[in-house]
């Protein structure tokens, strides 16, 4: 068949239309029936993608293992010394934290408040980031078989990363905090001001519905407010990079840059809701009735 002929082009056109129709059928089905397509996805992921992923990571693992094998004695001694010093610092920090926790419990008891539960977490690894830079999504190495549940928060040593959205048997998908559908209640570390953050769909976050006279300025660190949200309180989320007030408006606008970033193979922590809150399922933060019906956000410069 000559592809330059009209007959050849006609056949190719029909094949293109069929492929596009099938693709869009899948897109619509996945968007409207995620539970049905999730089963197919999980099976294909296990039988087809897992071997490919193993082959993809094999060179890096072989390189890592062989370079570890050939490390010099001096390098190993230096690494051991550094880790011992780090362990000593963290033990000291842990002692201080235990003292603060005991003090906190006593103060709560005095004020007849419910005792806060210790945060539990499951360690998971980032298996894949998205293929496209503008899709704020990652895949983790643990799923429902390891106790992972939907809507649990994920974070690392530097702060909040995002929230779990789709759970398979042995993997799970998480939405990053820069995704437009990600909301989190935070407090300004400096003065305790409550600020609602939303991902902007790119690489930053927006502070929403902050009163125009609120004391929020560039450089402020925003930490999780805790409460019934998917994150324990006090986790770093973002740093305010830009604030803007339009005259006559009742709310100010602010942009914030996330403090934590994600790298493949980096370990993350999945926050497990304590059993005492098992009757109250974890729900994503939404603005709800806090949003005035006639509110129109200004466009930032």
């Amino acid at each position, binding site marked *: 068949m000559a592809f330059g002929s009209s007959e050849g082009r006609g056949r190719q056109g029909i094949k293109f239309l069929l492929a596009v129709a099938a693709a*869009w059928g899948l897109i619509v089905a996945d968007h409207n029936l995620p539970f049905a397509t999730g089963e197919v*996805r999980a099976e294909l992921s296990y039988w087809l993608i897992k071997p*490919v992923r193993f082959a*993809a*990571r094999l060179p890096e693992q072989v390189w890592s293992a062989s370079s570890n094998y050939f490390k010099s004695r001096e390098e190993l001694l230096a690494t051991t010394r550094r880790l011992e010093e780090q362990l000593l610092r963290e033990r000291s920090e842990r002692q201080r934290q235990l003292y603060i926790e005991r003090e906190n419990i006593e103060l709560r008891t005095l004020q007849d408040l419910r005792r806060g539960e210790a945060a539990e977490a499951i360690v998971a690894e980032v298996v*894949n980031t998205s293929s*496209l830079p503008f899709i704020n999504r990652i895949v983790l190495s643990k799923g429902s078989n390891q106790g992972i549940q939907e809507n649990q928060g994920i974070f690392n040593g530097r702060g909040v990363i995002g929230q779990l959205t789709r759970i398979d048997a042995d993997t799970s998908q998480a939405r990053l905090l820069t995704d437009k559908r990600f909301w989190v209640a935070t407090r300004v570390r400096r003065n305790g001001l409550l600020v609602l953050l939303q991902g902007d769909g790119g690489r930053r976050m927006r502070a929403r519905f902050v009163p125009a006279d609120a004391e929020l300025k560039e450089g402020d660190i925003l930490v999780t407010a805790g409460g019934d949200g998917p994150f324990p309180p006090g986790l770093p989320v973002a740093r305010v990079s830009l604030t803007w007030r339009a005259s006559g408006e009742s709310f100010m606008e602010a942009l914030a840059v996330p403090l934590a970033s*994600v790298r493949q193979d980096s370990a993350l922590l999945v926050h497990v809701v304590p059993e005492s809150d098992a009757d109250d399922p974890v729900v994503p933060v939404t603005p709800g009735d806090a949003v005035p019906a006639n509110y129109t956000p200004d466009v930032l410069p």
Partner: protein
Amino acid sequence: MRGYQSDAMRDLEAVPSRLLIWLSLFCALCLNLAPYPDEWFVFKPDFVALLITYWVFRMRDAVGYSAAFLLGLLSDIAYTSTLGQHSFAYAVLVLTADFLRNPYVIAGRLQQCVFVMIALGAALGASLGVSAIFDDATPAAVDFLPALTGAGLWLALPLLLLPAAHRMAAR
């Protein structure tokens, strides 16, 4: 006649085997799923899209719409993106590469890179459209960088695949 044009004509005479084609696509999928540092991620091209473009330009029968659809489906499962998103993007890629194939064959090396960039950019644009509709994504111009880096890698691609193609050429 330019030196590379005669190379391009010679390339077309060496018919690669199906094994080489699918092996190269498998390696491309592995490269897509390999771990990369965060700083490289913005520049990382879609290796599967690059190889599809290469084979469509090289030999039209090598990779068709059904192969592109299946590869897209595998990519969607691997990245947990919306099912069908990469399938749609790769179908657009094959269509664009098919249209550009005739001028590609007679073009110089740098012009070929431009055609590759257009094809990869069309696939990225298709993916971007799906993400904008279903993922509330707000893409920026920098998100098209993978098309640029893919076009840059194009210069090296024949050096990797041609020797194997000539050795494994179907008789």
